[in-house]
C-alpha cells in the first residue's frame, strides 16, 4: 500500500478529481495548503505600505493506493494537473504499512 501526495494549483483540483474518478479511484482526501517555490507571489498595498505575498495557494491531495496502481496514478494526476507553467506542483509517494477503514475495521486493500 502506498500514499500518494500531490500539491497542485487549486483550480486544477476539479480536473484531477475527474481524471481519478475516470481511472476508478473511489476516494481521496484534500486540504488547503500554501506553496513556496519558483513561482512567486504578488504585491499588496495598504495605506502606503507594500507587502509581498510569497506563498501561493495550493491544494494538497492525499490518495491511498495499491502498489500496482501507483505508476498509473502518478501519470493520471500529473497529466490532469499540468498547465506547463511554473507552479504546477509536486507529487510524491510514501510507503504505507497499514490502512484501516474506520467504519468496518477492515484492513489493507479492502479498506480502500
Amino acid at each position, binding site marked *: 500500500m502506498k500514499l500518494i501526495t500531490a500539491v497542485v*494549483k487549486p*483550480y486544477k483540483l476539479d480536473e484531477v478529481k475527474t481524471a481519478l474518478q475516470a481511472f476508478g479511484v473511489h476516494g481521496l482526501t484534500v486540504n488547503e495548503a*500554501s506553496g*513556496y517555490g*519558483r*513561482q*512567486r507571489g*504578488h*504585491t*499588496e*498595498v*495598504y495605506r*502606503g*505600505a*507594500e*507587502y*509581498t*505575498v*510569497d*506563498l*501561493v495557494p495550493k491544494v494538497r491531495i492525499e490518495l491511498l493506493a495499491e502498489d500496482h496502481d501507483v505508476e498509473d496514478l502518478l501519470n493520471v494526476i500529473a497529466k490532469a494537473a499540468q498547465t506547463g*507553467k*511554473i*507552479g504546477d506542483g509536486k507529487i510524491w509517494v510514501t510507503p504505507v504499512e497499514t490502512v484501516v477503514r474506520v467504519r468496518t475495521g477492515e484492513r489493507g486493500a479492502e479498506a480502500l
Partner: protein
Amino acid sequence: MPTLDSGNTAWVLASSALVLLMTPGLAFFYGGMVRAKSVLNMLMMNFICIAVVTVAWVLYGWSVSFGNANDANGNGFWGTLTQWGMQSINTGISSGSHATIYGTTGVPIFAVACFQLMFAIITPALISGAIADRTKFVGWSIYVLAWVTVIYFPVAHWVFSPNGFINAKLHVMDFAGGTAVHINAGAGALACALVLGKRIGFKKDPMRPHNVPFVMLGAALLWFGWFGFNAGSALTAGGQASVVFMNTQVATCTAVIGWLVAEKIQHGKFTTVGAASGAVAGLVAITPACASVSPIGAIFVGLIPGFVCCYAVNLKNRFDFDDSLDVVGVHLVGGILGTLLIGFFAAPNEVSGFTNGAKAGLFYGGGIDQLLAQSEGAGIVFAYSFVVSFILAKIVNATVGLRVSAEDEIAGVDQTEHAETAYDWGGLSGTLHRAAVSVAAATATSNGSTPAGESDEEKVTV
C-alpha cells in the same frame, strides 16, 4: 413666493441621507454574491460611482436634469446649463434673503438637489452587478462618467422634471424611477454584459456567493434607504409620503413571498439569497407605482414581480449572456413590470396626486390609456438607454479597456486591480514580507511590481 417648510425640509434631508446609504447597501448586496477574490472590486465599482457622479452633478448634472424644472416652456428633453456649479441658487443664508424653494414643496432647491443626486449615483451603480469579477476599475470609472452625462441626466429630466416630456407630454406615472432608474440601469447592464462578454468558467465553474450574510446586510440597507427613495420623492412629509411608505413596505414583503414560492416550486427550498433578491425585486417594482396604487394594489405590484423575477434570473442561462448578478432579471424585468402594472392597479385617489393628467388603471375603471402611456415610457427609456449604453461601452472598451486580462481574472481582480486581499484570518499571514514603506521606496518598487496572483516570472521580493 413659497416659504420654507422645516418639516418637509427635514424629511427631504433625512431621505437624502437614506438614499446615499443605498449605494453601499448595493455594494454589499452585490459584494456578498461574488467570489472572495473579487469582492473589493465590486465594492469599489459602487463606491467610485458616488465620487464621480457627485462631481458631475454639482458641475452640470443638476442643471441639465432640473435646472429649468419650474419653467413650463422647457423643451422637455433637457434642462439648462445656467445653474452650473449651483451658483445661481439662493441659499437663503444671508439675512433678508430667502432660500430658493423647489416648486411648492417648501423645500430649498439645495435639499432637493442633494436628494436627486443620490438617485444619479445609484443608477449607474446598479449596472456593476452585471459585469462582476472581470472589470477594469479605470475603464469603469470613465464609463460611469460618460453614462450619467449622456444617459442619466437627460432621462432624469424626461421623467422627473415637471416639464420633462415623458412626464408632462406622455402623462407617464413614474413616481420614484421605474423607468429613469431601473429600466435605465437594467438596459445599461444588458449592454455591458454583452460588450464585456462572459466570465471565464461561466456556467462551468461554481460561482456561489462568498458571503451570504453580506447579501442580506446589503438587502437590509437597501430596504431601509428605499423608504427615503420612495417616500422622500413626495418632497413633503404628509399624507402622500405616508401612503407611499406603506405601499413600499407592502410590495416588498409580498415580493419576498412571491420569490420564495417560485423558488420552492423550482428547487424545493427557500433560500436566503432568494429572500433578499425578492425584496429587491419588490422594491424595484413598487418604485414607479408607490404613489399610484392603494395598499391593496401594492400587494399585487409586489407579489407578481417577486414571483416572475425568480424565473427571469434564468434568462441569462437560457440566452447565454453573463449578467453575473442578475441586474437584468431583477432591475430590468422588475422595473418594466412595476411600470406596466400601474396601468392595471393605479387607483383614482392616489392618481389624483399626479398633476400631469395621468389616468387610473384598467382594474380601477381608468381604461387602457394609462397602460399604453406606461408602455410607451418604458419602451422609450429602454431603447435609448440600451443603444447608447452599448455604444459607450464599445468605445470605452476599445480605448481605455473595460475588461481585465484572462490571467488577472483567474488570479482575481482584487489582487490585480487593487493590490489587496479582502480577508486575512491570520492563519498563514505571518508569511507576507513587509516592504520598505517610505514613499520613495514604495514608488520605486511599485513600478517594477505589477501585482499578479499567478504571475509566473521570477520576481525579486521587495
